[in-house]
Structures are given as C-alpha cells and as structure tokens.
C-alpha cells in the first residue's frame, strides 16, 4: 500500500524554536509538496520540489525553508517559529504526467500524509 508518512501527528513548540517537519514517501515520486491548511483559507502551498535538491516557492514561503537531499524525503523547516505558524501542515507527493505534444509536465494525483497539527505557543 502506498504511503506518505509525516513524522508527527501533533507537535507543540515555543515561539522562536527551530522546527523540523519530516515527510517520507515510498512510491518513488518525483514531486513533493508542503501545504498548510487553516480554517476558512483552505490549503495553501508553501514549497514544492520536483527533483532531489530542487525546490520552488509556493504561495506562502515566508518564514519557511525546505530540504530535499534524498528523493523519498522532503523536510519543512520553520527557522524561528511564530504563533501565526500554528496550523495543520500537509505533505504530499506525486508522479509527473508529461503532456503529449507539449514541452511541459503536470501532476498525476497527489498522495497526502495524515498531517501534522503544529501549535506554536
């Protein structure tokens, strides 16, 4: 059974701490994503990666960084946690789908982890 595993289900941290959220997928997917989900705002993309050591900013990258040293692992780092980073964090992964006749690719379906509910006090 395919799996995306997030290291923690619940996490409580103090303001100013450095926080690491880990995500591992076992499907050999090229693409990996970090989203945050807040009530009334839906899912917002923080960062994504389409290859090892490659990263692209999403819609809300400020205050976050990422690391992808191995294909199966994508880490989200909060350099100095703040209370406005209290949220549900969702990791996802997918294969590329290469668009016939075009010089581009898009995503196949995303597989999501169970999420990490982070509280910053």
């Amino acid at each position: 059974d395919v799996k995306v595993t997030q290291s923690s289900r619940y996490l409580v941290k103090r303001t100013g701490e450095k926080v690491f959220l880990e995500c591992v997928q076992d499907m050999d997917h090229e693409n990996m994503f970090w989203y945050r989900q807040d009530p009334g705002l839906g899912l917002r993309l923080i960062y994504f990666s389409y290859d090892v050591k490659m990263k692209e900013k999403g819609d809300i990258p400020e205050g976050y960084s990422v690391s992808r040293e191995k294909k199966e692992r994508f880490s989200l780092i909060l350099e100095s946690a703040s209370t406005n980073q209290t949220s549900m964090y969702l990791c996802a992964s997918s294969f590329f789908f290469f668009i016939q006749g075009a010089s581009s690719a898009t995503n196949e379906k995303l597989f999501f982890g169970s999420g990490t509910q982070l509280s910053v006090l």
Partner: protein
Amino acid sequence: SQQGEEDPQALSIQEGENATMNCSYKTSINNLQWYRQNSGRGLVHLILIRSNEREKHSGRLRVTLDTSKKSSSLLITASRAADTASYFCATDASGSGAGSYQLTFGKGTKLSVIP
C-alpha cells in the same frame, strides 16, 4: 496563482439524496482533480479529469468539466452518512514552467449527509 473556488461552502442533505458541488477556476488548466478530506485528516484523491475530457465516472462519483466556462462539478449519487467530509477541487496551470507542477486547491465544500 490561480485558485479553484468551490460552491457551495457547505451542503447538508439526507442520506440517499444526490450531492452536487461546483468548482470554478480562472485560467487554462491541464487537469482538474477532486479530493476528499475527513475531519482532521489528510486529503484523499477521488478523480482526475484532463482538459480534453468532458465527463468522468468513478463508482457513485460523476465529474464534469466545461473548459469554456472554466468550471467543474462533482456529483455524488445516493449519498451515505460516510460521505460526510470536505471536498476540494485542485487545478494546475497549463503551459511550461513550474506553474504546471503547482497544484492549487480551493477552500472546499463541507458536505454533511444526515442519516
């Protein structure tokens, strides 16, 4: 970045009825996807429809796509209490570059199916 917008925000129906949710988006896409989320959990993929497709079925799910209106609908037939969840549409952006890798989600429709 573009974003799908689901409508309605919330929907409450009786078990056995059909549920219809709509999604509108702003710019051209390669594909549109629908996901389901049970409370406090990760999202689960339901169905993907490509820009050259008009309708797709999967079990009790029927998805339509109208690229001229930039809209999609998700129909769940003969709903069950277990269908209670939030439903999200997600779109990419057609064309080359990182935008086509980026999947953008709407805010979701919260469906309640009353037994």
